[in-house]
């Protein structure tokens, strides 16, 4: 086979072009997800000269990895030198052990729960065979680390949702009307700096008084944490929405006037789309604030979630506690980071391109 196919080279060239186009397209997503370092690696994999990308790889991957390693090294050497009532501060290795331990606990609890339900089913089968009513009970083990995480995330999203539902319309009103702005501004200024710890007692008393129905929709503790999150995370969205609405391009407002758009269609077709980037900026900040507030609220109010986990470990005071608390700290940080990325991704999806 020595025939040279003239189309062969062109074909391969075209495929290569397509591959690079695809990588460039995927790059925007890697950036959004905080994984920008994948792009140069992919380019090299697709046949680009590695030298051209070394600088970029060093900057995007090498430096961050080195920084993390340096942090771990510093932590590992300094931590054992500090003696506390619970022994030396755990280093990275001990914290990792605790993380593994927490995972094993969770797995064990899950197995016990499965066991419990299997036995219950068996018993019930016998009861039915004997003509008795079956009886069902919930498994009541201590909550695992994972279920604490789930509770926290559920709570923060519920509180955040409430905050959004309140803040966006109010922000639009404040941005559109000078009167509404004048009315809201003093309230925002006064309530914005209030710490969650100050809201919490009020919220728990009010919730206890108002939410007396036992319909099982929400647990009281869940509502208390969620509403505290709402009260604290309201403000960034409110302020940014108002700002976004107030700073709509005056020329576009003129267009809407010439077109005689009604209030509703103006909000839908002009105000919302042009304020969207700032609304999302506000939402991102709000979710961040909400997550921080939630942990504090859970700790103080003994509501289930990661905050309570930290508090329980603190009270527990065993030699493992410090390590477990550190696992929780990293978990909280990583989840906060992921939530921020999530919001950023949604923002990129919904925001028109030339504003970025």
């Amino acid at each position: 086979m020595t025939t040279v196919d003239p189309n062969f080279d062109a074909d391969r060239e075209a495929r290569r072009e397509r591959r690079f186009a695809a990588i460039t397209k995927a790059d925007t997503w890697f950036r959004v997800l905080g994984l920008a370092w994948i792009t140069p690696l992919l380019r090299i994999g697709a046949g680009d000269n590695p030298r051209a990308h070394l600088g970029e790889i060093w900057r995007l991957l090498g430096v961050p990895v080195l920084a993390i390693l340096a942090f771990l090294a510093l932590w590992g050497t300094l931590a054992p030198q500090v003696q506390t009532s619970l022994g030396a501060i755990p280093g990275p290795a001990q914290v990792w052990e605790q993380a593994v331990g927490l995972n094993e606990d969770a797995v064990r609890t899950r197995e016990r729960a499965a066991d419990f339900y299997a036995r219950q089913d068996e018993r019930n089968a016998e009861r039915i065979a004997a003509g008795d009513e079956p009886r069902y009970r919930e498994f009541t083990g201590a909550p695992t680390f994972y279920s604490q995480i789930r509770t926290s995330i559920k709570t923060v999203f519920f509180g955040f949702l409430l905050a959004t539902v309140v803040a966006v319309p109010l922000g639009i009103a404040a941005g559109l009307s000078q009167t509404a702005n004048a009315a809201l501004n003093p309230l925002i200024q006064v309530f914005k700096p209030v710490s969650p710890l100050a809201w919490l007692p009020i919220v728990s008393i009010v919730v206890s008084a108002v939410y007396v129905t036992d319909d099982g929709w929400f647990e009281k503790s869940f509502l208390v944490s969620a509403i505290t999150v709402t009260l604290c995370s309201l403000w960034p969205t409110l302020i940014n929405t108002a700002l976004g609405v107030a700073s709509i391009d005056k020329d576009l407002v003129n267009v809407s006037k010439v077109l005689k758009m009604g209030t509703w269609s103006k909000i839908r077709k002009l105000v919302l789309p042009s304020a969207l980037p700032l609304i999302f900026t506000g939402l991102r900040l709000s979710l961040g604030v909400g997550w921080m507030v939630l942990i504090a609220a859970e700790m103080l109010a003994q509501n289930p979630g990661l905050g309570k986990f930290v508090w329980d470990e603190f009270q527990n005071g065993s030699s493992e506690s410090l390590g477990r608390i550190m696992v929780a700290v990293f978990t909280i940080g990583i989840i906060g980071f992921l939530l921020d990325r999530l919001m950023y991704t949604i923002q990129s999806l919904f925001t028109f391109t030339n504003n970025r």
Partner: protein
Amino acid sequence: MAFLDLKNVSKSYGDTPVLQGIDLAVEEGEFLVLLGFSGTGKTTLVNLMAGLEMPTKGEVLFKGRPVTEPGPERGVIFQNYSLMPWLTVNGNVGLAVDTMFPELSRAERAAKVAHYVGMVGLSHAAGRRPAELSGGMRQRVNVARALAMDPEMLLLDEPLSALDALTRGNLAEEIEKIWEADKKTCVLITNDVDEAILLADRVVMMTNGPRATIGKITEVGLPRPRTRKALLEHPDYYAYRQEVLDFLEEYEHGNQSKHASGAAPKPKAVAAETPKAVAAE
């Protein structure tokens, strides 16, 4: 009664005077071109005509009734495109169609949008957003949107100034063609003499600001339809051009001339157009 009447209109922003003592009658079906240096208050004048601004003194009458608010019967082509960046070409034009014909079915609406988009030659780019269009294309969308309002008159605020010379000339001819089709009343603002003469029935020249007013009105009697090429060959073209240039030269370098500060417009030219206004002075 003129179609759009400005009676002794003055406008200041706070303490800053911009326009003073403007008397202008726009007749139905005419193409009026306002010519003036940058910053004299041309956009302000268009905003007054559109109803986006209210005069500090005097009044603006549209078909005999005072203008109190903007409306689609006076379509505006804005100086800086003013397209919704999140909408496609179709979406932007559709916005105007929606306000004018809210009861259209989906298909009728699409047909209407396609008609106006096709009219400015953008059918191939109907699905693109403004960021993906050239300046000339954006201005076409702006024109299509204004046409889709099916207005009784069109106010064009320097529709071509932001474009390069080549695009500019082409689009000017197209505007002339579109106008020829149904002879809607048009007020177009420009700072380009050739553009003014190509398009205008009358060229209204503004004095320099502050306190800008109408300095001179020249009637352009060149035959239509006009093209740049045909104009260059017409013997009268240079006389018109000279007339306009002479006026502009007088006002160049911010020269206020005698009457601009004294508020009385140049009597001879204005008297020919609006005798009543001079009597009122």
